[in-house]
């Protein structure tokens, strides 16, 4: 017991920097709000003034009306998830639960979501709460919580049903739980349909690749190599002993595959599915009798340092995604000097910044749902970025209803172009058609004459 207490203290001491560093960094930044948080603020403001919001509002935005600080809400949701994880694993050994908590602190998606986009945590918390009530055999709370969860999207609902079914089958058995499951599933689907939830929902359409999944490879949101390795080790060891590991493995793969449609939620769900397995590995490594105490201490130390390194490296980098002073200046200028009905064309990833800070219509964003598929506009954007024929370029711009073009330093330095005069940059040289109304800090704003 003494060893466990010491270890718990060590865990929490190690995780202190997790929150101290970001809070310190935020105090020095021009904008402490992330693009996602600005986006949600914009949705609230659009709802207030009866305008069409850039993304479809959901339960998260309704909660935001009561708790205006998104960061506070994020930390509250993180605490709720901690509590629910502890409650769900109540029968497990104390060390195992401690390790689960420890890993929760050290996974980029959970802490990252708490700090930058709490919407992900809300739906994870609701799913965990549904599992908790289901476990406690409290049918009505299960139905209510799962119904609330189902307002996210139909894909969320179906994935939630799969998770609940897996949990039910491997803890209670199909026979004992089928009634509740059928009831919960149908309530969820009915709620999703009645609330006109989209088929899928992601405001970051990103191609699935290793670089978009692993934070070490530069993913904006993702999982760490050490976490995945620990989970993979457990699944490999338990593969033939527990069939649940095979199902969880399949569900994890499904979650990752759905990343382009469910965004960060898919990665967060996969993380939560793998969490007990990663904790199992750590628990196994800590409790098994090692032949060499030297390799035990140094090996475990290297593993923990690896996990900690992933988290700190992520947090050290994540705040660079927040808009800088030059971006804020350019967008504030756009807000003041462009007409309210202006349509600003830029890289789709700048869409939310244009919508939220400049308060103008962005030609396209990365928002993906079944009802708002940006693929056509993304295709047009792609054509326009690479267009060097002046007449065709201008015709495309006019037909798309674009009134302004915003070029950022990131776009000029590899996001779209590498060289001066490439594609659209060549067309923009025509001063008669494109009037440069702003140029500062690498940001150029053109008005179309």
């Amino acid at each position, binding site marked *: 017991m003494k060893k466990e207490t010491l270890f718990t203290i060590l865990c929490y001491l190690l995780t202190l920097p997790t929150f101290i560093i970001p809070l310190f960094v935020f105090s020095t930044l021009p904008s402490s709000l992330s693009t996602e948080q600005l986006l949600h603020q914009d949705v609230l403001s659009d709802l207030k003034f009866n305008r069409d919001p850039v993304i479809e509002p959901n339960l998260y935005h309704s909660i935001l009306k009561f708790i205006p600080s998104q960061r506070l809400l994020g930390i509250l949701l993180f605490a709720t998830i901690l509590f629910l994880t502890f409650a769900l694993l109540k029968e497990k050994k104390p060390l195992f639960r401690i390790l689960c908590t420890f890993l929760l602190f050290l996974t980029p998606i959970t802490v990252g979501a708490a700090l930058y986009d709490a919407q992900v945590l809300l739906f994870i918390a609701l799913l965990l709460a549904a599992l908790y009530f289901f476990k406690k055999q409290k049918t009505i709370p299960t139905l209510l919580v799962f119904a609330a969860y189902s307002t996210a999207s139909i894909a969320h609902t179906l994935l939630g049903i799969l998770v609940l079914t897996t949990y039910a089958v491997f803890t209670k058995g199909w026979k004992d739980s089928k009634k509740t499951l059928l009831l919960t599933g149908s309530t969820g689907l009915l709620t999703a349909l009645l609330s006109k939830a989209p088929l899928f929902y992601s405001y970051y359409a990103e191609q699935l*690749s*290793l*670089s978009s999944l692993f934070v*070490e*490879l*530069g993913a904006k949101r993702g999982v760490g*190599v*050490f976490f995945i*390795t620990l989970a993979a080790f457990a699944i490999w060891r338990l593969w033939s002993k527990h069939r649940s590991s095979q199902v969880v493995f399949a569900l994890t793969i499904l979650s990752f595959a759905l990343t382009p449609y469910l965004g960060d939620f898919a990665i967060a769900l996969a993380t939560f599915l793998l969490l007990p397995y990663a904790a199992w590995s750590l628990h196994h*490594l800590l409790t098994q009798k*090692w*032949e*060499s105490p*030297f*390799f*035990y201490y*140094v*090996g475990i130390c*290297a*593993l923990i*340092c*690896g996990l900690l*390194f*992933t988290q700190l*490296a992520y947090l050290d*980098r994540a705040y660079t995604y927040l808009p800088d002073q030059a971006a804020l200046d350019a967008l504030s200028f756009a807000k003041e000097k462009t007409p309210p009905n202006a349509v600003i064309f830029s890289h789709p990833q700048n869409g939310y910044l244009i919508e939220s800070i400049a308060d103008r219509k962005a030609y396209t964003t990365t928002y993906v749902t079944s009802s708002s598929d940006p693929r056509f506009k993304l295709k047009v954007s792609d054509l326009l970025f690479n267009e060097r024929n002046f007449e065709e370029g201008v015709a495309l711009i006019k037909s798309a209803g674009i009134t302004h073009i915003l070029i950022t330093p990131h776009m000029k*330095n*590899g996001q779209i172009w*590498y*060289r001066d005069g490439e594609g659209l940059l060549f067309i923009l040289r025509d001063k008669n058609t494109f009037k440069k109304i702003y140029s500062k800090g690498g940001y150029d704003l053109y008005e179309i004459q």
Partner: protein
Amino acid sequence: MDKRLLYGLFLIGIAAMIFSLAFPPAADYTKDSSYFHERIISTIAQNGHISSIDAQSYQGRELTGLFIFHYFVAPFYALFGQSALHFITVLLLAGCIVLVGIITFDLTHSRKLSLIAAITAMFIPSLMQLTSETSPLLFTFFLFLSCIALFFRLPQHQYLYATTLTLFALTSPLSLIYALSFTAYLLISSHKKYLKRDREVYIFSTALIIWLQLIIYKKALFFHGISLIYSNLPQTYLPNVFFDQHILTLLTLVGFIPALLGAYAAYHYVSRAKREDIFLFSIVLVIITLLFARLLTAEQGIPLLGLVISILFAQGIGLLNTQLKALKSKTLSYALLTLIFIAFLATSVVPTLTLHKEPLLTTQEKTDLATLPLPQNATIMTTLDKAHAVAFITKRPVAADSNFLFVDNSDFVVQDIDNIYSSSFASQALPFLERYSATHILYFDEDVKKYGLNSYLDDCFKLISNTSIILYEVRCTTQ
């Protein structure tokens, strides 16, 4: 350890040193990267450290890695100059050969077989090629083999193993091959009973290697993502760097007979419970897979494969000998062994002895480069094949070189340089020269043969040198 064996291995090591000092495969560097490494060593020798920004490359580019080998040899370089580099390289080769012998002895407990393994390692053509270069590769191979040797001697040498492994992980990303091989080894032999201690060593080794590699390459990983494996090389460079040949070519490069008998030994032992051999087999398997998957460069993979195969080859000989002893006809067994010996001579010894490569630069070119009248602030545009050599000898920055880490879109760099050398008009070439802030443009004989001397050179470009090196000063701008 058997003292007579140590003397034997020591003698083979000395023979390898004398051999590679007396008959080097080339009189001078054959690879441009050698000049880069010497430049880094020279900077450390002069300043005591190296800046994280390499001012002589791409108008200032970030360097990645800890350069442990460079720091290790820099004091010797400061004292004895370039000859120290050559001596250390040859010494490391001898070290690798001795380690091959020691590992073989640990596996077979046969003095003869370990000497055979060491002699085989001496005649790996691709390994011998490295002795005329300055490269951290032989140092890396030495650490790789040390880790294997110490792993087989665990738990006695656990602290030394941990120290060597840490040094290895800090020195080279090739340590990931060690971690991968360990994984393959555990997967292949998962049903064996002896694994408990190995699993502990595995967890320690893999966690340490991955963690240290992530720390060292953190920034480069964020910048390039998974394509860091390819060092951000342009598409046109990939076939030259990665192994893109038939398997028979690979066998020739590592030695045909060692490869065949090595494979035989591997096959024999994998089916039995001998952990050391399975471990070596895993290394061979991982290297071959990575070579053919084009995730490991030929320069790194083939000599390392040769070294590991030398150990397996000696065991193959041992096995064959046991089986031949069972034969009734001694004549047949002698004939077979003689045949193998002749084949070994023909496919390993002769290619190594006759190995000859042309140096990258002739003596005249080196002298001409060193005496070019260049101002201190000059930036030289040269083709990528010799850019490091130009930067090292002229002590001036080059506009671009073949180290593409942290370079946005390396394909454009190749295209731009091609455009500069093949442009017909100054107006076409100048924007590209300005992009790289080039003040001078340099032609080697090969460039003149490949591109011809451009007609635009007379108008805006002043001829500075017209020896084996042609150098023009850029005098116009696009303004």
